[in-house]
């Protein structure tokens, strides 16, 4: 796609999304879009790790949950006792809490990045899952701080001050919709800039061939940690937005299924592509609601969801966005399409060194 076409289409998209609440009066659908949007932000952040550095993080929800809890706790205030010494925090404004949450999630990302990038591949998968489980169990059991299974309730909503308009409450569907839209655009821009730079290339290089990447002077740990920090901070942002929208968080935000949802969005959309998580997020964010329209049992909906996932992997193994892009290339008759995937009966296995 030429630059002009892509620019025009992104302007059209943003225009469409900005005007959507003006003519869409189905509040429930707006709600679905908000939740999908929050997950898209999380999926975009996951894509930075999964798609660009090639590190399969199955604990990404930990950062999302940490963001949600940090922002909620900061805005609600708390009093805890560490070794009988009371520590209290007075409630802070929501915007400030969200900043704290993003920073804190980023710090957790830094910590996890530092300690876990000694291990790669399958081990990293498990370390990340373990990290998410541990955070969930802490949220579940540290009653004094998190209320455990009783959930943090009555989380305040965000207030913005706009010049000329004054205070705006981000409460209810429409304001939250715009908030999520804004956050999503910012996330997109940050990730886009990152991947089209030295840093992004370093990450991709690590994914493609780590020994070779280090041989040309790329500091593996540094860029993996950078990717985790940015990714964790953005996921934390998504979590904070989520918490102040639904206004309740419980330890189940750390559930594995949410990571899975993000992974599904990234991979079906097309990992390592900028638009992939958005497309995947829209499909898998809205699909459950579409299925609900058929008035079938929820279990059946989920079965369809699972089967659909399998079919997408079979028929669009690289994800939807690359498939569409290839189709577009073929349609516009461009040459230089990448060679067809090996589909011979015997696909050669990688020879070991």
């Amino acid at each position, binding site marked *: 796609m030429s630059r002009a076409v892509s620019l025009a289409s992104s302007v059209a998209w943003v225009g469409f999304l900005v005007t959507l609440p003006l003519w869409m009066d189905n*509040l*429930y659908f707006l*709600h679905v879009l908000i939740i999908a949007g929050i997950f898209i932000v999380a999926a975009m952040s996951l894509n930075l790790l999964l798609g660009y550095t090639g590190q399969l993080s199955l604990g990404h929800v930990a950062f999302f949950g940490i963001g949600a809890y940090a922002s909620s706790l900061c805005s609600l205030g708390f009093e805890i006792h560490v070794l009988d010494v009371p520590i209290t925090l007075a409630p802070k404004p929501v915007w400030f809490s969200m900043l704290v949450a993003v920073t804190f999630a980023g710090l957790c990302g830094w910590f996890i990045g530092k300690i876990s990038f000694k291990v790669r591949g399958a081990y990293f998968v498990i370390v990340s899952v373990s990290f998410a489980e541990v955070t969930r169990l802490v949220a*579940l*059991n540290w*009653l004094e701080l998190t209320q*455990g*299974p*009783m*959930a943090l*309730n*009555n989380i305040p909503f965000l207030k913005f001050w706009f010049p000329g308009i004054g205070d705006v409450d981000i409460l209810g569907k429409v304001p939250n919709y715009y908030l999520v839209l804004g956050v999503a655009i910012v996330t997109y821009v940050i990730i886009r800039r990152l991947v089209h730079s030295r840093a992004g290339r370093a990450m991709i290089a690590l994914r493609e061939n780590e020994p070779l990447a280090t041989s040309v002077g790329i500091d593996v740990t540094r860029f993996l940690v950078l990717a985790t920090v940015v990714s964790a901070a953005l996921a934390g942002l998504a979590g904070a937005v989520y918490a102040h929208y*639904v*206004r*309740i*968080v*419980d330890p*189940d*935000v750390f559930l594995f299924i949410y990571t899975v949802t993000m992974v599904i969005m990234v991979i079906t959309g097309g990992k390592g592509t900028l638009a992939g998580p958005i497309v995947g997020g829209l499909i898998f964010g809205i699909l459950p609601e579409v299925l609900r329209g058929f008035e079938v049992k*929820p279990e059946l909906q989920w079965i369809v969801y699972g089967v659909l996932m399998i079919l997408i992997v079979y028929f669009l193994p690289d994800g939807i966005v690359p498939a569409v892009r290839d189709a577009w290339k073929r349609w516009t008759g461009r040459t230089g399409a990448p060679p067809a995937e090996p589909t011979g009966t015997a696909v050669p296995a990688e020879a070991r060194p």
Partner: protein
Amino acid sequence: QETIKIGVTQPLTGAFAASGNYVAQGARIAEDEINAAGGVLGKKIQLVIEDNKSNPTEAVATVEKLIVRDKVPVIMGAWSSTLTLAVMPKLQEYKVPMVVETSSSGKITTSGNPYVFRISPTSEMEAVAFKPLVAKLGIKKADFLNTNNDFGIGSAAEYSKMLKGQGVAVGVMETMDPKATDFSAQLTRIKASGGDTLFVTTAVEQVTLILKQAKELQLNARIITTGGSNSPDQLIAQAGDAANGSFHTVFFPPWFPEVVTNPEPAKRYMTEWQKRGHEPGGLTEGFRGYDGIFTIAEAIKIAGKAEPAAIKDALWKTKVKGVYGNIEFIKQGPAGNESGQNIPSVYLVKIDGGKVAKSGL
């Protein structure tokens, strides 16, 4: 023909699935009975039942869905105290009343939410009712094992306060996650504590396992379950002889329907339950849904229209002869924002030789 929608949010899956499903089945019986008798205000009622998956955030989502998408004027739910507490702000936000059929935490009616109307007893009511039995059972030292949610923690707090007031020593207070299945560590500790009575507060699935595992570990303390969601019949069926000797509070004793305040609706409910082939073990739970829907239907009748504000006002005037007893609401909580609370009866039963026996209360 247009119908009047009534929202129901129950845990149909997850940790509290058994109880949630029973409540939903009881609610269905009430729905059919009301519709067979011509519905309310000349319209049929229609239950919209959503599964809150035993999770507070999901519970909020179901209430949101019921109100925003299905536009129900009134809701019944959400079984567990935690789930109920979670959805309460949404009721306030959308100004829709909810009848609470199971939850026991005191906070629900004391936090100043004028949209909740509870027909089930609070833990405090239960503990107070239990007081005379302390001496009768000869309790000297008690241990606690409860879920670490509002239901379990609230109950343990009320009971331990009451017991201390009676001069009973309190040993260990162990908690568990509502989804846990292996309690050997907690029970080993409780055994080491050496109390004569163990108070257990959780849903029936975990009670079954606790009875079995206590027996395996030779825990000799008398086990008393509180909260009324312990389905003695199911315990007998699933825990076998490990259930013998345990005590259970219930709010409806189907084994002796003669003792209840209103035998008439109780018999109707029990007959229909049997006819539909539902689990007999669910009788002690299903009646909550049955009563809840009747209460709501009566309120709609009094309101004269299916609108949230009108129904809320009408609930204060509602009087129903239910399985729970004579249901009517008294005011609780801060003045101006009171919640409704019903005062039902509490019963204590004992399992002996694979049978449920009366036991004092």
